[in-house]
């Protein structure tokens, strides 16, 4: 990117080589607010012209999206409140589940479940709706006319929601450590790894879902399959250990399963190296698949 600065300045030649007055690009004229052309007014050139970087562009976009998130009551409610409240209502159900038989405690079921909800509602569903809304408002098309690259647009727009998801998880960990009497994690790095891959995967899957979603309203429908399948099959509400073996080994392949496995394993510390690698491989495979699908099928403009 650093080459751009000089390139911008390199076009000045036509403005008048050897013409001492030509201190700025294109002969130094500039249109001022009055509409008058002011000759010789400073136009930033060459190294004086600040060049954007991927990070600075994504930050600008993320800032706008954060403002929008703060103004969208329904998204806030679904993304922030639901994941924090839902696990509480599950507590009594889990207590009846005889989880102790498979070596788990109520807390060790509830915490990964709560983080799973946060990923599903706070990140995945919310982001699928945001991507769809921005596409339908032609915001994505507008952004693509500028310097932002496609990946920067999708990442920048996702940052506020990802930060919310991360913050929620920290609140949930703190809360359940205090309220549910959970011991300190045995292998915290696995929990962190699980959470981070979960965030990345949910963002990528949200973009895939947005590709098949026509309106913001229909996003509530198109996100249902992933939410339901994950709640039932990925150990979010029911630990996979309680499922029949055959079903359990299939369910382990679902997108959110490795995330829950890694997070829970972070606390219990009883994952073997094989189980660890297997979970990471499954999570990576889904993320790569989703990214490929986005590159191939994502729609940047509404259907006409």
């Amino acid at each position, binding site marked *: 990117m650093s080459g751009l600065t000089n390139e*911008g300045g390199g076009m000045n030649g036509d403005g008048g080589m050897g013409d001492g007055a030509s201190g700025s690009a*294109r002969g130094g004229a500039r249109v001022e*607010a009055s509409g008058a052309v002011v000759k010789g007014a400073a136009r930033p050139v060459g190294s004086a012209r600040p060049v954007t970087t991927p990070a600075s562009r994504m930050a600008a*976009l993320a800032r*706008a999206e954060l403002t929008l998130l703060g103004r969208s009551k329904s998204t806030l409610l679904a993304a922030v409140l639901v994941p924090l409240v839902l696990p509480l209502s599950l507590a009594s159900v889990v207590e009846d589940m005889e989880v102790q038989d498979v070596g788990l405690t109520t807390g060790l079921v509830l915490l990964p479940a709560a983080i799973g909800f946060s990923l599903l509602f706070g990140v995945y569903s919310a982001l699928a709706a945001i991507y769809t809304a921005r596409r339908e*408002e032609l915001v994505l098309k507008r952004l693509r*006319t500028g310097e932002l690259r496609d990946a920067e647009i999708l990442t920048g727009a996702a940052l506020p929601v990802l930060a919310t998801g991360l913050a929620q998880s920290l609140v949930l960990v703190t809360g359940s450590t205090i309220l549910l009497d959970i011991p300190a994690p045995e292998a915290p790095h696995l929990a962190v790894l699980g959470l981070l891959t979960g965030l990345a995967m949910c963002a990528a899957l949200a973009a895939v879902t947005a590709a098949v979603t026509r309106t913001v309203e229909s996003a509530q429908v198109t996100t249902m399959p992933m939410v339901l399948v994950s709640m039932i099959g990925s150990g979010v509400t029911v630990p996979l250990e309680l499922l029949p073996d055959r079903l359990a080994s299939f369910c382990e392949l679902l997108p959110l399963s490795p995330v829950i496995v890694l997070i829970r394993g972070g606390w219990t510390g009883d994952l073997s190296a094989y189980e660890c690698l297997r979970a990471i491989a499954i999570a990576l495979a889904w993320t790569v698949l989703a990214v490929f699908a986005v590159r191939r099928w994502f729609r940047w403009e509404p259907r006409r």
Partner: protein
Amino acid sequence: MDTNEHVIEVTDLRRVYGGGFEAVRGISFHVDRGEIFALLGTNGAGKTSTVELLEGLARPDGGRIRVLGHDPHADRAAVRPRTGVMLQEGGFPSELTVAETARMWAGCVSGARPVGEVLSLVGLAARAGVRVKQLSGGERRRLDLALALLGDPEVLFLDEPTTGLDAEGRRDTWDLVRALRDSGTTVLLTTHYLEEAENLADRLAILHEGRIASAGTPAEVTAAQPSRITFRLPEGYFVGDLPPLAELGVSEHEVDGPLVRLRTHELQRAATGLLVWAERAGVDLHGLDVRSASLEEAFLGIAREASRRTADAEVEA
């Protein structure tokens, strides 16, 4: 040096949509530095399809584009910091304010001018705190223009910049675009307002069904078209009473009751001949209307001719 002369160069450009619809069917043109070039055409003529390719939003299905010497799609990193784009329709989150929208865009543009400065340039400074959803259609167009100007672009793409503006807003935009041109900015705009192309464009191309039907300066494009004289013959007079039309330089005539319509490429000669005859004969030519060819007539003539050609082709087939 090539890039300095032809800032935009388009060769045999084609665009085919998914359904097989050929929106752009092999067009070529170039735009020089510091020039305002207008793509004129009816809805569906292929203007937006063409501009989107120039902006680098999609890859052409055939032909070649060079903007500032680069392929705008493949070489976007080299082109984008130097171009400004105004799309046909907004594309702003409705819940952001004008200032927030501009600030976001400024963060994505190399060498962005101060947000307040650009908003006053388009007359939106007083509306900075207003949400985009509360803006009028014209104000949204002006916000779009402000964003296109944020990076002080060398090349400006304006897709129907004044659609939805009132007469005053349109004139303000024209003044602004002219001032930009005078400061060296190259402007490519699309419009379906003939008046806009005639007033603003240094050169233009009339698009019809994905092809360039006519191109040149507004004067060149209109010069190819005949001028028109219309009048009413008084009672008792017939076309045969006029001097021989061929001698007046009239190339075509139509008679509709007393109404006579003449077309000529030699307006002065035809008009003089007609008026001298009327003076000598002591005749009043009621409803006399003498007008040189306008872009409007050129435009309508091209559309008429093109559809006639299509009809002929269909008859032959």
